[in-house]
Each structure stands twice: as C-alpha cells, then as structure tokens.
C-alpha cells in the first residue's frame, strides 16, 4: 500500500486584523502630501534643472579652493566652537537651578509646574530668531551668538535635567533625611552625586548640538564661520565657500567624536565591564535619547 499525498484545504487562518486607525492615518498623510504638492507656489519643472544647477555649484565650490584660506577659516570655525561652548556654559548655569525647581520630587507641584512652563516657553523659540533679536543689542559680534545659544538651550537642558533628577533613587535622599540633613545638605549629599555624571553628559551633548547651531547663526551675522560662508556665497566666491563647508563638516565630526568618547566614558563610569560591547548608541541614558535629538 502506498501512501499518497493528498493536498488538503488551506487551514483556517484567522482573518488579518484590520487597524482602522492606520488606514485613516495613512490616507490623511497621503492627502496632506498631495495637497501640498499641488498647491505650493513652486514650478515643479524647475526641479528638473535643480540637479544641474547643484552640480555646477558643487563644481565651482570644490574646484577653486585656495589652500591659503585654510588658517582663516579654521580660526572662524574655532570661533563657532567657542560660541557653542560659552553659550552652553551659560545655559547650564541657568538650567541647573531651574531644573531643581522643576523636579516634582524636590519641590512642590505648583512650583514645579510654573518652572516647567518657563522652560517650555524658552524651548519654543528657534535659536536663529534669538540671534536676530540679540544682534541689535550686541552688534555683529560673537557675543550675540553666545547669548542666543545660551538663552536658547536653557529650555531643552532644563527639561532633560529635571527628568534626570526625577529619576534618582530615593534611598540616598531618605538616608540624608534620616540623619537630619537640612534642605541644602540633602541636595548636596542625596541628589547631586547621583545626577552629576548624567548632567555632565547631557551638557556635552548639547554642546555638540550647539556647534551646528552656532555655525548657522553666523549666516544671520552672529559671528563664527557662518558669517564667512554667507559672505563667500553672497559675493560668489565659491571656492572659499566650498573650503568653509569642508571645514564645518570636518570640525563638527571631530568635535562630535571627541565629545562622544568623553560622554561614553562619563556614562559608563570607571567600570570597564561594558567596553567589550560595541556601542553605537549616543552614549545617553536609555529612554531619553529620542527627546534630545537635535537634528
């Protein structure tokens, strides 16, 4: 007797679940895109010429570079980095006390709420708009950029800081209370040692973000390499603009690399256990990375 294979009917698969929300969401997005594409004031035929124009531009930029301009541009990039550093420092100085006032585990709810609203408002203003506002006050100097970055980063840093502070372990705070610590002592011994590494790490991260911001602020006149770039492009000195662009990219990547390594070291602490794992994350504590991405 031979066994023959009889193809049976397909098994009763459960019906594929239908997610109405996803359908509506997708349709809504497609509708929005189509509406925008049709109604925007833009000659789409120009888009076909764009790659050609871009190619010409890139060729001009990267074929007429004069290496004698490198030192000046590097100095301008250094000014951008300086603006970012000083601006971040000012922001940290304000963000730390504000974040203590915004942490619900340290102060009462009303105080925390008010402080958070201040941080939210500060967070909403784009850096470049702040730069526009500070230029009439400080003139076309790097200090306008420093102030813009300083004020513009308080909101973001403050928010990150108070989230970190709210995540501290209760143990040390209770221990400090148990031995009769005052408010200040409790803060000094119960909270600050726990949060310092993460605050330092986030401040460095913000510094990296601010380098991009300070490179950009120069475009509206707030000092740094952006000013040089804007000038070169305005006066069609393409070679200089190309060189400047290369220096911005290289400088940014360099600072990112150094600062990223330091951040990894800070977060990992002195224990070397995790060094085997190849870690390509941002070197930030888990869970917060999504909120801080600058770009």
């Amino acid at each position: 007797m031979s066994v023959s294979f009889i193809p049976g009917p397909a098994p009763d698969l459960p019906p594929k679940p239908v997610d109405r929300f996803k359908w509506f969401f997708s349709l809504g997005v497609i509708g929005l895109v189509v509406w925008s594409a049709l109604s925007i004031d833009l000659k789409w035929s120009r888009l076909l010429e764009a790659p050609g124009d871009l190619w010409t531009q890139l060729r001009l930029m990267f074929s007429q570079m004069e290496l004698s301009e490198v030192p000046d541009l590097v100095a301008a990039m250094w000014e951008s980095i300086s603006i970012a550093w000083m601006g971040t420092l000012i922001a940290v100085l304000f963000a730390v006390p504000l974040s203590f006032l915004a942490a619900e585990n340290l102060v009462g709810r009303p105080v925390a709420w008010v402080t958070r609203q201040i941080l939210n408002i500060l967070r909403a203003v784009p850096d470049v708009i702040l730069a526009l506002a500070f230029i009439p006050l400080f003139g076309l100097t790097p200090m306008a950029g420093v102030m813009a970055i300083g004020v513009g980063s308080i909101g973001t840093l403050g928010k990150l800081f108070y989230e970190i502070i709210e995540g501290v372990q209760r143990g040390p705070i209770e221990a400090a209370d148990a031995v009769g610590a005052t408010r200040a002592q409790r803060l000094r011994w119960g909270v600050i040692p726990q949060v310092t590494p993460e605050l330092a790490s986030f401040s460095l991260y913000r510094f990296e973000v601010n380098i991009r911001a300070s490179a950009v602020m120069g475009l509206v006149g707030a000092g740094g390499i952006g000013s040089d770039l804007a000038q070169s492009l305005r006066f069609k000195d393409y070679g200089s603009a190309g060189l400047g662009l290369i220096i911005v990219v290289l400088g940014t990547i360099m600072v990112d690399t150094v600062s990223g390594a330091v951040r990894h070291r800070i977060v990992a602490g002195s224990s070397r256990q995790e060094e085997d794992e190849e870690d390509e994350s941002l070197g930030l504590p888990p869970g917060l990375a999504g909120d801080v991405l600058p770009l």
Partner: protein
Amino acid sequence: MTVPTVGIQAPNLPPKPRPSLFAIGGTLAAIAMTIVTARSVGFSFGGIVTNLGRKNSVIEGLLSPDWGQIWSRRSRAPFIETFQLAVLGTATGSLLSLPLALWSTRFGNPNPFTRGILRGFNNVIRSIPDLLWALLFVSAVGIGALPGLLALFFFSLAVTTKLTSDTLDGIDMGPIEAANATGANLSQMLRTAVVPQILPAYSSFVLYNFEINLRASAVLGLVGAGGIGNRIEFFRGRGEWEELWGLVFMFFLVVFVVERISVTLRRRLI
C-alpha cells in the same frame, strides 16, 4: 550601680576614594576650554549687563507685540507655504531614509565597501545644519520655495536615517534568520523580517521629524528660502519688532497645535 559610660569612638571609616584621574583631567580641561573660548568670543559679564540694560526696540517690541499679526491676511500665505514645505520635505526625505538606513546595516547590505560609503554619506549630511542647506540651495537654484524644499529634504533625510539606523541596531535578529532559512532573498527578508519590526518607531520618527521641520522651515526664509521666515526678515529689516514678535508668537501657536496633534498620533502609533 551605675552603668559605666563608654566613650564612643569614631568608627573606622574607609578612606574617601580619591577622585579619578579622568574626573580631575576632565574638570581641568573644561576650565581651560572655558578660559580659551571666553577670550575668543570676547566674553564679559559687564558687557552683557550694559547691552541688555540699554533701552532698545527689540525688548520693547517683545513687551508689546502686535497681536494683529495673528489675523493678518498678508501673513497667512507665507504660513501656508511654511506648512507645505514642512509636509513635502518630511515626506520626500523620510521616504528615502528608510532604504538608506536599511542599506547602511550589516544585514541589509552585506557589502562592506558600499556600506562604508553610505555610512560616510549619512555622517556628512548629518553634520550640515538646516539653514546651511538652505543657503547652499538658494545660492545654487535661486530664492523661493524650491531651495527651501531641497534643504528640508536633505535635512529630513539626515535626521530620519540616523534615528532609524539606531532602531535597526537593536532589532531582534530571530525573524531575519527565519526569513533567510526559508530562502528569502534580500528584499523579501527586509520586507518581512525587518520592516515590520521598525515600522511603528519609524512612523513616530517621521512625525517627530515633521515637528522639527516645521520649526526649521520658519527660519529658512531668513536666507531667502521661502515660508514665514521671509516675512520675519522683512520686519527685521525695517526694525518693526512689535510686528516681528507678533508673527513669532503666531508661529508658536501653530507649532504648539501641530505638536499636540503629532504627539497624540505618535503615542497611538507606538
């Protein structure tokens, strides 16, 4: 009988650990950096105080903004343009970012050479800020909405690719093995084993990217790349700070509403 009192001696405390070399070095480096950079930007507290304290139209304008700008007819068109730029920039940029992120991973692109090139490309576009893209494209294709769209396209591409790549690093490799075991080719494997894993996170990144693009597209106009920034620049040129701040406040309002909607959707998606 009296109880003998016992003098309490300080317990033998372990010695306080000395701060690590890294901490000392780091602090010193930070101080040195501060001194050098402060000199480089000409920092002075006195200067800040005098400059901020002086009577000026910027802060006066901030204190009495022109709320009429919120309903102004002439501001409406640039606002709509800003919104359209953000939609189109996000849609095109994030659409291309999915394959770009997939091809930059080890399982999505087994060829180390092309993978290296793609990763290098990602790093380079990520280090160019939004306004710089805009300036480059204004210089290349002229002023208007087109350079703004191109700038937002590259900017979105950089952001969503980075975020998606980070998610791809942490996915479950099991489904990939399963797909490979059943003989799936590369695109089938990616389609059935990888994309479903990252799709919720990816859609959330796209929405997040839309929020940043909306903010970014407001400043693009400062260099001539369309949107509300053109009008901000117009008021700045004339020194009309009341109108400028009114416009900025209206912009906050729009961003706030869009962000609320977007945050709700993002929560629903994950």
